[in-house]
Every structure is written in structure tokens, then in C-alpha cells.
């Protein structure tokens, strides 16, 4: 009896988890992320949250946060999560570009993919690796959100019941936000020769696509819908929302991911191993 598609998806994604959490290079990346996140959590995030809590009365009607695009911070009942939301929407997509860059490229160049594909299939490897990287990111996002919850409870333990829904909202939304970035890296990784090339291409595509489409939409507003093609284009709109309203734009990353995964699968199926 041959293992099915889901069995292989599970095995391949488990192996990716092992690569991240049980190998020296994987652990090094996790430790680096943890240190960076701890610094963000303990300094900018904690201090800004304390300021927002202390000056809550003064902030009413204060337009400075609106001016710099952080107006929605006032809508979050627990400011730590509002700040987490803004930091996470910036950090995790960038982390995704780095973390998900090497889904298949170096294994293909080394020939390791040949050993795997001969007992699996290109589709299974492609989606298994994608699923594995998504689980790793989900764990990191979950851990970062939990650390923010710990910060909230340290300030006021009574906030637990109201903090849990916010925790779920931000976690789900940030996972959705990194989905198209991971799919873009899966597609690029299926095409290029190294993780570095994938990262460079991702930055170029991201920047130029956003600039070109932005320019086109400015002069020809009917083409504004093309901005939909840019991974993360919804993030600025998303930052303005709070609570469960943030899920209003969930369809954007989901559709972008489906398109990018279809492109990646097509590339992977045709690539010489």
C-alpha cells in the first residue's frame, strides 16, 4: 500500500520542522529570532504600550497617531496587541522572505531532491515543504503572540479573558498575512538556484511590481485592481483595522497564495532536478 498525498505531506513537513528545531543551523535561526523578538517585546513594544495606557485620557482626540498611520492603536482595548499587530505586520512578512527562501532550491542544486522525488512526487515535495515552512512560521507567530499575552498579564492579570480573543485575532491574521509571502518564496525557490537568489528576486519583484502597478493605477485608476497581485498590498489597510474586523481582508492573502502556489507548482513540475 503506497502512502497517500496527505501521508507524504505530513512526513515532508515534519522533516522541515526537524530541520528548524533539531538541527544546529535551524536552532541558530530560532535563537536569533527569539533574541530579536525579545528586544522588540521588552523595549519598543512594552514601553509604547505603557505610554498608551498611562496617557489614555490624553490620547483621546490626539491626531498624531492618525498622522503617522497608527490611529487604529487607539481602537485596540489592549494596547499591547495593537502594537504587536503593527510590529508583526512588518516583521513577519520580512522574516517569511528569509525563512521560506530555501524551500527547494538548494536541495535541487545539490541533487538531494532526486533522492526524495524518486519515492514521492514533485507535487508532494512542493506542497509538503510549503506546509512545513507555514507550520514553522505559525509556531513562531504563536510564540510571539503568547509572549505578548504574558506581557499583558504581567501588567494586569485581570485582562486574561479579554486578551484571549485578541490573541487569536492577531495570530490568525498574521499567519494569513505571511501566507502569500511564503507562497511567493515557494514559487521562486522552485525556479532559482539558491536561497540568496530567491530573496533578491523576492525583493525586486515586490518592490518593482508594487511601484509599477502603483504608477499605473495612479495614471489609469481602472488598473487599480492590479494592486491585488502584490503580496502584502492589503497590509496597510489591514493595519487600520482592529479586532475581528481584520478578517474582512482575509480573502486577499488567500487568493494571492492560491495563484502563487499554482505558479510554483507549474514551475516545479517542469524543472529539471
Amino acid at each position, binding site marked *: *500500500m*503506497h*502512502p497517500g498525498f496527505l501521508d*507524504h505531506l505530513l*512526513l*515532508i513537513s515534519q*522533516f522541515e520542522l*526537524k*530541520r528548524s528545531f533539531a*538541527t*544546529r*543551523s*535551524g536552532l541558530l535561526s530560532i535563537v536569533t529570532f527569539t533574541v530579536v523578538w525579545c528586544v522588540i517585546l521588552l523595549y519598543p513594544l512594552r514601553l509604547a504600550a505603557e505610554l498608551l495606557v498611562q496617557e489614555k485620557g490624553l490620547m483621546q482626540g490626539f491626531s498624531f497617531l492618525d498622522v503617522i498611520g497608527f490611529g487604529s492603536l487607539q481602537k485596540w482595548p489592549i494596547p499591547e496587541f495593537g502594537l504587536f499587530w503593527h510590529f508583526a505586520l512588518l516583521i513577519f512578512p520580512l522574516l517569511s522572505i528569509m525563512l521560506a527562501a530555501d524551500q527547494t532550491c538548494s*536541495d535541487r542544486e*545539490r*541533487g*538531494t531532491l*532526486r*533522492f*526524495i*522525488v*524518486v*519515492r*514521492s*512526487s*514533485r507535487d*508532494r515535495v512542493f506542497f509538503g515543504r510549503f506546509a512545513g515552512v507555514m507550520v514553522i512560521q505559525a509556531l513562531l507567530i504563536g510564540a510571539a503572540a503568547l509572549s505578548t499575552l504574558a506581557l499583558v498579564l504581567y501588567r494586569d492579570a485581570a485582562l486574561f479573558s479579554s486578551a484571549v480573543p485578541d490573541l487569536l485575532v492577531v495570530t490568525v491574521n498574521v499567519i494569513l498575512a505571511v501566507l502569500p509571502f511564503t507562497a511567493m518564496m515557494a514559487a521562486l525557490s522552485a525556479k532559482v538556484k539558491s536561497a540568496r537568489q530567491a530573496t533578491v528576486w523576492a525583493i525586486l519583484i515586490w518592490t518593482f511590481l508594487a511601484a509599477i502597478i502603483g504608477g499605473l493605477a495612479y495614471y489609469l485608476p481602472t488598473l487599480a485592481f492590479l494592486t491585488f497581485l502584490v503580496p502584502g498590498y492589503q497590509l496597510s489597510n489591514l493595519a487600520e483595522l482592529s479586532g475581528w474586523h481584520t478578517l474582512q481582508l482575509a480573502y486577499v492573502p488567500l487568493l494571492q497564495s492560491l495563484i502563487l502556489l499554482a505558479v510554483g507548482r507549474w514551475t516545479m513540475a*517542469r524543472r*529539471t*532536478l
Partner: protein
Amino acid sequence: MKSPLVHCRDLTHVYSGKVALSNVSFELDAGEPIGLVGPNGAGKTTLLSILSGFLRPTSGAVRLFGQPPGATQLIGKVSALPQVARLDPGFTIIEQLVFYARLQGFTTQQAALEAGRVLEEVSLTDATHEKPAALSHGMTKRVAIAQALIGKPALILLDEPTAGLDPVNVRTVRAIIAERSPATTFIISSHDLAELDRLCKYILLLENGMLQPQTSGLNEEQAAIRYITLQMETGPAREVIAQLQALEGVLQVTNPQKNEFIVAYDPDLQPQMDLQLMQCITSHHWQYRQLSHGKTLEEKLFFKH
């Protein structure tokens, strides 16, 4: 109807304008090992890569057990030793072999046993918990051979299996192939014609991406003219040729290489030519190294007289 083991029809592959394979068609059935020979750039690795599902042909059709290469129905049935492939440097040998066995449907426990078994088969038990970077070139090759032996594949594609191995390990690989045949059919690409001569009864010859007609029918048992290859230690070539030529039934004697003579003879006139040759050698006090029936594979394929 039972489908052939391998079926290729009009297989063509073009690499950026250069034809690597041109209209290659053949069918192979299960059984004894099959050799794939040809000069550098003849298309051997391209053909094996297509059969393994690593490369899509530009045109033509390929079927293994009636399925296209890379089909999930072939998992566990077909395995391959690619010419250029290295293991993941981040994991130990055993971790990777267990993972491969799990992909083939083994449970975790069975996979651990199977990985241990194939490593033992290639005499690498000591390297079980090493990472690939700690292995020598020969050991890396043996691990790559070990992964191809996981489970009970019906077809194993080996691209240069003995290149870079020391004589002891070449013998081990030869023994593994002999032991597993014909339950497992091997397709072996190699430049070592002596090796293929020992192992294979059927040879595919590729030249400039085209399959040559003398691919089959290398069996000489039914031929009207037979050959004996004689390797001498000593003996003046001119005299040896003259004396052998004078023997009854001998049609022609050639001297393709130093101290190597090929005797063509009529088996109807002299069925025991080997004994007659030995008597001739003894009577002239010459010394010989080896006497074998038939031509060497090199002679059969590349130096037809």
C-alpha cells in the same frame, strides 16, 4: 496484458539547441541486468534521468511498468542512483535513510531496521550517525547506493555505480547486483566495459544520442563464427598469430592490443577450440594470462571486424 518493464518510443531530448537523445525507442523486460554504454556525451545520463523522472523529455513517450516516470504508482517499485546527487548536509545518514524509507511506506520502526540493513549491505554501519560532510567520496557513493536498495524495488537505475569506488567496494556492489538479480532488474550505465561484461547479458549502446543497432543480439552461442579472447604473458605476437592461424578451424587471428589475441573460428570444424589453443600454448612454452570465450564487450561494441 503485461506491460514491459521499460518502454521508450521516439524519445528525444534537446538541451539548449544540442540534441542529447534522438528518437530513441526500445522495450526492456524484467530479468538480468541491462548495461547502458556509450562515449562521453552520448546521452546515457540524460536517458537515465528521464527514466527516473528527473528530466522531462522534449518529445516522445516513456513508460515504466505502464506508468509515466515519477508517477506515484512507481513509489517503492523504481529506485535510482543518480550520477550527481548529495545528501542533505544538515542530517545524519541514518536520519535521511529512515526518512526515505518512511516515504516508501515503512513504519518508523521498520524504516529504522531497513536503513540499518542497507547500510550494512554497503559496509557502512560505522557511519550510521555521521553527517554527509564527514564521509569520503567513496563512502558518499556507497550511501547513495544504499538508498537505492531500500525496500524491494523491481527496477533500479544505476548511473555509474562503481565510479570512484575502491576494488573491494566495487566487488561488494557487483555482489549486491548479482544477488538481487533477476528479482530486481538493474539498468546500469557505466564506462567500465569489463564490469558490464561481467554483469550484463543485454547492452544498450548510445552514440551521439542515438541507440545503435547492435544493442541486442550480443549472445554468441548460436553464431556460425565464434571467438576466443586470449591474453598472453609472453610470446612474440607475429609467431603467436602464425601458429594460431595454422590450427584447424581457425578463420582469423587478430591482435587488437599488446598481448591480446582474438581467435575467430568455426565451431563445426573444431568444437573444442579452447583445448586446441591450450595445447598449442603449452607446446611452444608460452605463458598465458587468460583465455575466455567470446570477444570482450569493448571489441563487440566499438571494434567490429
